[in-house]
């Protein structure tokens, strides 16, 4: 009688172990997938930027510094060669810098209505806006999934299986840049920059 109960308990424990292990693995892969989603969107963003810069370059000769900042930030971001969530700190730093450079450029573009009216700037702007949104939403999705994964591997009793499943806490995508956190200062005085 006693041995039967023991056997049942063992089988129960084994089933739970399998379930918990598979649950963690599934979340791990979901996190990885969510990260790849960001990666896809970032790649697209990097491909779009040269087009945009080329399209506005002619009309914005005297905004050279803004354009160059964007190109530089873009090249920096492309250089970051991280393929997994481990490199998320590095990636987010470069991408956040690119975001703020791009935002400055978009503010400048808004000051040239004739630029938007001619050529495909409007279209490029739409694509860029969309890509920015996709990056942001993909980031949210990644953070949500990673948080779920992290919570699961820290919570008892799943935490006991975490080592077996080689579960490591995934880094979240944060805003590292202090300037990004601050409210942007928009200068509309049109004074020449010093």
């Amino acid at each position, binding site marked *: 009688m006693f041995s039967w109960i023991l056997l049942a308990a063992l089988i129960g424990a084994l089933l739970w172990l399998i379930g918990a292990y598979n649950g963690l693995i599934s979340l791990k892969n979901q996190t990885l997938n969510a990260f790849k989603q960001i990666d896809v*969107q970032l790649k697209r963003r990097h491909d779009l930027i040269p087009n945009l810069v080329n399209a506005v370059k002619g009309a914005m000769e005297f905004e050279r510094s803004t354009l160059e900042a964007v190109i530089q930030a873009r090249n920096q971001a492309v250089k970051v060669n991280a393929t997994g969530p481990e490199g998320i700190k590095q990636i987010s730093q470069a991408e956040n810098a690119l975001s703020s450079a791009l935002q400055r450029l978009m503010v400048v573009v808004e000051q040239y209505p004739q630029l938007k009216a001619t050529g495909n700037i409007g279209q490029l702007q739409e694509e860029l806006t969309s890509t920015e949104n996709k990056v942001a939403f993909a980031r*949210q*999705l990644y953070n949500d999934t990673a948080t779920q994964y992290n919570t699961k591997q820290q919570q008892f009793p799943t935490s006991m299986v975490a080592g077996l499943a080689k579960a490591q806490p995934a880094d979240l995508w944060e805003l590292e840049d202090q300037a990004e956190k601050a409210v942007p200062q928009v200068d509309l005085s049109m004074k020449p920059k010093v």
Partner: protein
Amino acid sequence: MSDDTSLNLFQQQEANRRRTVLLVIGFVAFFAWLGFGGDYIYYLSTRDAPSTAYHHVFPWFGIALTVIALLTAWYAYATGPEKVLWSTGARAVVDPTDPQEQQLVNVVEEMAIAAGVPRPRIWIVDDPDPNAFATGTDPLHAHIAVTRGLLQLCNREELQAVVGHELGHVKNLDVRLMTLLAALVGAVALMHDGATRILRGGFYAGGGGGGGSRGGGKKGGAGPLLAILLVVWILSWILAPIITQILPARCSRSCSWCGSSRGSSRRSSRRSSRWR
């Protein structure tokens, strides 16, 4: 039913799955009643007939109607989304041809990422009234349609809110329930039209037979039961389209808000200042 807004996504999905199953069961059960009820009435009315006359023993009507109901439910589930889209005259956006369509495609892609569902198929209805709807059976087989009027009226942010709302309906499986409901209501209306036309002839012919059975009932004692059954059964036939009309109204009222709260929860977290 009224406190749907307080449920989380998984509870909403669960509720919608349950309601869909209940809808199909109710639909089939109702048809079974129409069929087997008719069989039973026919059985009672021919029971006392002389042995040479026809005795209705095997429930043909019931089996036939139940099979028809099952097939209809299956057909509605399989082709409901197509039918809904077809009835609105929507056309699929495969290659966006103008900036408005491109923006719609972009916005749907964005909101699909935000909602964490695959990108649904996108449709445009050439209608000047601003409107949008979603259909499909699950997030993997979902469709989202907006009117041309909506594209012209809304700016990018507003379009995002609308698309987010519709994706909310996709995600919490409202679309499954609603599409099936719409398809079944349409099927019942069609069948009712056909059936009343046939039955009207049948009732006139059966009127004489009914009188005869009532005479026989005085001896047998099945009279009151037969009469009540007959009244309820006929009422069921008459009420069928009315009931199916009321059903969707109730369902949609109970859930008209939950989709919007679901879809906009992510949006508002990003740019809440714009939506205050």
